[in-house]
């Protein structure tokens, strides 16, 4: 048992961090929100070059196979830098198509996965588990939808080129639209579609949890820096205990969400049957922790935190939006209770006269 990132994994995170810092990501985020996707696409290419999208694409289609731990590390960084775009959706689409290929249907995988892995294709995805909207369908090269899973074996994977009107999100850098039915081509109709779509939704929830953790970490980092520098009553506000304790609580929430995100990654690597509950636990914990961090960040920044000009807003608004993306807190909590309390490594249910104190 070694529940710890190895040196290479940690270095991968640091490399992404350096790259995204140097790339002036906040400017790309703002442009993206204004509908100008050029800078965002340039950033996308660099993220792909670093290998992020290949982490959920099988080797047969030019990927690196499924590497959930590395994916968690990279999505924490993508969240820390508030990178815009259908990142989660592209990864989940990779899992979906890879899942079809694994079940023998390689046509769509061969057509799309090499392009996803290399960053040439920016893909959005709508699945029942993720709600009616596709993220950034207006910017993506294609949107995949799975429909008709009402009766077993009837699920259909399609591409759609068109979408309905863009619905602004409360995170300006997230643009939501309903995919238009009946456009594009049918890629697959088979029982395999349903299973692959379920797996894709799990991976989407998992990547969102990691991204959310990163958003929360950025909020605390920025707020600590601000609290050390902002002076009121002739002292830095970071010396006030009420300020310190809120930040300490924000950190506690995030530091205990992190092992759940890593635990979900381990469950996915082992293809554990309990992975769904593990992912749901990570999603709840990361979502609550990042949201609490956002509330704390806003409060401790005072009015400057409430301005759109100040970059903090990029993370504050994302923290709320990600809470309900790919699994609401309520749905995730229900899913946790459907799984075992202490999944493998296992503790059998308590027997005998359990005494707690």
């Amino acid at each position, binding site marked *: *048992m070694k529940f710890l990132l190895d040196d290479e*994994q940690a270095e991968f995170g640091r490399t992404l961090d350096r790259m995204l810092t140097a790339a002036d990501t906040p400017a790309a985020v703002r442009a993206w929100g204004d509908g100008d996707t050029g800078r965002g696409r340039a950033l996308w290419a660099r993220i792909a070059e670093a290998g992020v999208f290949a982490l959920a694409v099988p080797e047969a289609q030019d990927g690196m196979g499924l590497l959930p731990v590395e994916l968690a590390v990279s999505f924490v960084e993508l969240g820390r830098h508030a990178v815009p775009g259908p990142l989660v959706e592209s990864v989940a689409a990779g899992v979906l198509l890879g899942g079809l290929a694994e079940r023998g249907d390689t046509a769509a995988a061969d057509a799309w996965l090499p392009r996803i892995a290399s960053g040439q294709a920016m893909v959005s995805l709508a699945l029942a588990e993720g709600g009616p909207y596709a993220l950034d369908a207006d910017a993506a090269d294609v949107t995949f939808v799975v429909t008709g899973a009402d009766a077993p074996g009837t699920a259909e994977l399609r591409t759609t080129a068109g979408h309905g009107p863009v619905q602004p999100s409360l995170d300006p850098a997230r643009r939501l639209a309903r995919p238009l039915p009946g456009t594009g081509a049918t890629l697959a109709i088979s029982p395999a579609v349903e299973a692959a779509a379920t797996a894709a939704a799990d991976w989407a929830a998992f990547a969102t949890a990691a991204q959310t953790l990163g958003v929360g970490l950025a909020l605390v980092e920025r707020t*600590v820096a601000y609290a050390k520098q902002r002076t009121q009553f002739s002292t830095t506000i970071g010396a006030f205990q009420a300020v310190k304790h809120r930040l300490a609580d924000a950190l506690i929430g995030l530091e205990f969400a992190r092992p759940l995100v890593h635990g979900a990654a381990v469950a996915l690597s082992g293809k554990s049957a309990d992975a769904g509950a593990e992912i749901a*636990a990570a999603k709840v914990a990361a979502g609550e922790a990042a949201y609490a961090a956002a509330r704390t960040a806003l409060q401790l920044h005072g009015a400057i935190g409430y301005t759109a000009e100040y970059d903090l807003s990029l993370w504050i608004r994302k923290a709320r939006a990600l809470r309900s993306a790919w699994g609401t807190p309520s749905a995730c909590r229900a899913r946790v209770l459907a799984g075992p309390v202490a999944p493998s490594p296992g503790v059998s249910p*308590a027997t005998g006269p*359990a005494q707690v104190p």
Partner: protein
Amino acid sequence: MDLDFTTEDDAFRAEARDWLAAHVPARPLPSLETSEGFAAHRAWERTLSTGRWSAVSWPVEQGGRGASILHWLIFEEEYYAAGAPGRVSQNGINLLAPTLFEHGSPEQRARILPAMASGEVIWAQAWSEPESGSDLASLRSTAVRVAGGWLLNGQKAWSSRAAFADRAFGLFRSDPGADRPHRGLTYLMFPLDAKGVTVRPVGRLDGKPAFAELFLDDVFVPDEDVIGEPGRGWQVAMSTAGNERGLTLRSPGRFTAAAEKLTALWRDEADPADTALRDRVADAVIRSRAYRLFTYANASRIAAGASIGAESSLNKVFWSELDISLHETALDLLGPRGELSDEAGEAPADGSWADGYTFSLAGPIYAGTNEIQRDIIAERLLGLPKGRRS
């Protein structure tokens, strides 16, 4: 990164599980905070030590198994899953023993540890004083040098289980002239039945005489019972405090076991339409799992050669709040029966939710209050400036 156990780990788990299944008392022991329960728990410590399970992480010479931190975690998981009794010797095993391993002499370890492992000598922690709780360094009890040892005077407060325990360890001011309150303190051990010691049991919130005030009046302590260097007791104490907050006091096993029971209770008792309560059960499960994985991550760090410092304050706040919410949720699930004490004839059969609840309320107070832990987190982990606390 993995959570896989080796066959050796599995074998260790199986051995612990089998032994516990054969030895854990079929009926819960009476509360260890009563004199009858204390005796029963002492006997349980003896049973544990005959199986060499009382201090699994200690070296074999001292009655342990030389178990790794991972095996210790596995043992604790099995221990709580088996519903085994609370540990009456925990102050000694979790606080004093690690301090002796770090600062004690070989003679002290040889003399003290075997009797601790067998439950023959049960230890109490005598740190707090009526005027010195969070600000421990302001303590006033004194140790004055005399031929061959020290004379202790003063008053200690809130000493858990001191009403029934055999010996205590604590901090005393040995140099009243030292320039700072943290200097000139000495860490000493003394018998609770020594001449000059008066023990006054104090009822806790649950009414049980579970802690005590200690009055010390010219109590003689020989030199061999000083731990570390005289005058440098603060440094010794800080290593105890790290253990108290960090890994060794609250293993994840007890919270995962409690979360299991809570989930079972929810399945049996809950109104499925009450999603608010369902969400609280789910949160307790999620948090107990987070705590467990956090601990595995720390164990992995330690195995890789790192040491855990101020991070133990994250643990302390987290487990103490988790413990309360686990128990509050259980009492709410029980509805009108949630107010029954464990002694009530109609109390829920599946565990000691009422006693557990009352005890959990103390978690944010002892082992350094959560306010103090948040200061440590803010200052040492986040690098925020020190406040007015000196």
